[in-house]
């Protein structure tokens, strides 16, 4: 079954004619994702790898009413508008790859998505992949293998590292969700954990957090309070990061009395979550639980 994306996912790529947009559209098609259409204002009528390009989401959806998911790859200043356009067109899942989206923009479109009964993944995320079914993102597809481990992560390459370790060990993934490295993101740990809870295919979950904010502590509280029924293994990046310094991700900063790694590890441990010290240890713990 998996979550969020699967064989029925029909993708629209916003910003499809950009360098990144073209590259990843091709890569997704190669992976087997059903990329149905693309949008770049002013470029309507073109094609990218056979995918028709439209001037607006409304036109794309009118021509291809089967579209149910959008992937946003437009530059940061235009990302919020692109998300609103997809939400207003009735799409139920918008994956925002774009980095450097202003946090006030994100707060607005995330709140709006909740009113439109839609989900946002990201911004500043690698996307979502259900191996061997659909990849809506920028991750290298070949390192994933379909299986029973759900992954939810604030990171990109670190997720690939851990996913690859899982794949190499003979296990596989149900769905991997990169929720994004920004301070404010759409789906968060709790919401994805809740989806994994209801997903029959997912047997175990890997939660990859990092310094900054308190989403990991909130997730730990959720796991503890709900008696989360599936084993969860954690990993927290940035244990050697100094306070008040932004570690690459806009969200990765120990600041304003929140975000230090020890608090996260402690909270997860108290919720019965084993936290690995290295990516490889994640695999060991997964096998042990």
């Amino acid at each position, binding site marked *: 079954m998996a979550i969020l994306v699967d064989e029925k996912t029909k993708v629209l790529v916003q910003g499809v004619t950009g360098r990144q947009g073209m*590259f990843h559209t091709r890569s997704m098609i190669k992976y087997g994702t059903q990329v149905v259409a693309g949008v770049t204002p002013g470029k309507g009528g073109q094609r990218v790898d056979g995918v028709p390009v439209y001037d607006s989401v409304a036109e794309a959806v009118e021509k291809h009413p089967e579209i149910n998911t959008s992937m946003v790859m437009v530059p*940061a*200043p235009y990302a919020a508008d692109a998300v609103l356009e997809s939400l207003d067109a009735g799409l139920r899942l918008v994956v925002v790859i774009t980095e*450097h*989206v*202003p*946090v*006030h*923009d*994100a*707060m*607005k479109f*995330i*709140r709006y998505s909740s*009113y439109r009964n839609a989900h946002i993944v990201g911004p500043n995320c690698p996307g979502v992949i259900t191996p061997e079914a659909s990849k809506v993102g*920028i*991750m*290298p597809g070949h*390192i994933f293998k379909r299986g029973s481990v759900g992954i939810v992560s*604030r*990171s*990109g*390459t*670190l997720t*690939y*590292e851990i996913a*690859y370790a899982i794949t190499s060990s003979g296990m596989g993934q149900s769905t991997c969700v990169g929720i994004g*490295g920004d*301070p*404010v*993101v759409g789906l*968060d740990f709790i919401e994805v954990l809740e989806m994994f809870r209801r997903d029959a295919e997912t047997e175990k979950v890997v939660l*990859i957090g*990092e*310094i900054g*904010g*308190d*989403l990991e502590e*909130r997730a730990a509280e959720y796991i503890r309070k709900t008696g989360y029924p599936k084993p969860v293994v954690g990993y927290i*990046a*940035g*244990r*050697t*990061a*100094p306070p008040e*310094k*932004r*570690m*690459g*991700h*806009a*969200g*990765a900063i120990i600041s*304003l*009395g*929140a975000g230090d790694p020890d608090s996260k590890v402690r909270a997860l441990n108290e919720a019965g979550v084993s936290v690995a*010290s*290295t*990516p*490889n240890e994640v695999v060991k713990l997964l096998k042990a639980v």
Partner: protein
Amino acid sequence: MKLYEYEGRELFRRYGIPVADSVVVESVDEARRAAESLPGKVVVKAQVLVAGRGRAGGVKVAETAVQAAELAGRMLGSEIKGEKVEKVLFTAYTEIVKELYLGIIVDRFKKAPQVIASAEGGVEIEELARTSPEHVLKVEVNPLLGLTDYQVRRVVRFMGLDGGLADQAGRILRNLYRLFVEVDCELAEINPLAITPDNKLVAVDSKVIVDENALFRHREFVRPSEGTGLEEEARKLGFTAVELDGDVGIIGNGAGLTMATMDMVKLKGGRPANFLDVGGGAAEDVVEKASRLLLTHPRVKVLFVNILGGITRCDEVARGVVSAYKAVGAGKKIVVRMMGTNEEEGKRILRENGILPYDSMEEAAETAAKLVR
């Protein structure tokens, strides 16, 4: 991006939040002239971004203009918690009857602005929220609706204000929210917000953090990249770097992986010298620049490059590393771990140039840590 206190004050003034008269000075001469323009007692405040300035001697009260100029002269050019004082702020001394707290933050969990208020100001609000949560009010603002009047009333009532003070506080909060949204703030804080003997509210300090991702809408706050530290050099080259005190230089692609790389080096007994993320899809020249930066850093003894190739191609990375190593790597050691796109070609290039590539991040980190011992 943290603003200096004087920049925050200027915003406060622009948004109709009352602040005491003040002047910024950058030299002793300026300080002398400025001190005379402010009648009465003057507060002399070093303009630094580090926290805990007050306890570190960065805030003093001068009884006379002469004393103020003298204090400013001593502060200018000195260091407070490692940060050089380039500017000093003089503000008219405010008599304070009571200190309050008023701030607005971006709340990550609520995914919304949150107003934070307390009838106790001048303290660290996170600390107060931990020890006496009943003294701290948090009000979530709907980012699509903005701050509503009923929320303003709730905050003002919680702060224990009524009559004219309540009206003033309401106006200040509305203006602070407007500032928070229009200037794309992550934090806009007035601490303390003081009640003066004549029943006026005055913002005595400002703390404003602007979202760096929104600077394209606020060019006025873009600071020229200056200074010579590793972080500044990296920024000029387009990387995000953070300097640490170790000797193992770290290059990774992706923030999470780069942090994990640092963590792993530490776990294996090494001491990371930095965080440096070359980002996704870095080409040869980008990797070369990053490698050169770290190889020429005096504290770096070993450079550890950890790349997981997705959009990033391992062959490009290998070429960049090799090229930098040949040029400026004399006396330094280098450990490279790579995996993913064009991995074989990358490894071949490394081997041909005498660098043994690693498959395992853990083994590579172990080697890097050992090499500096």
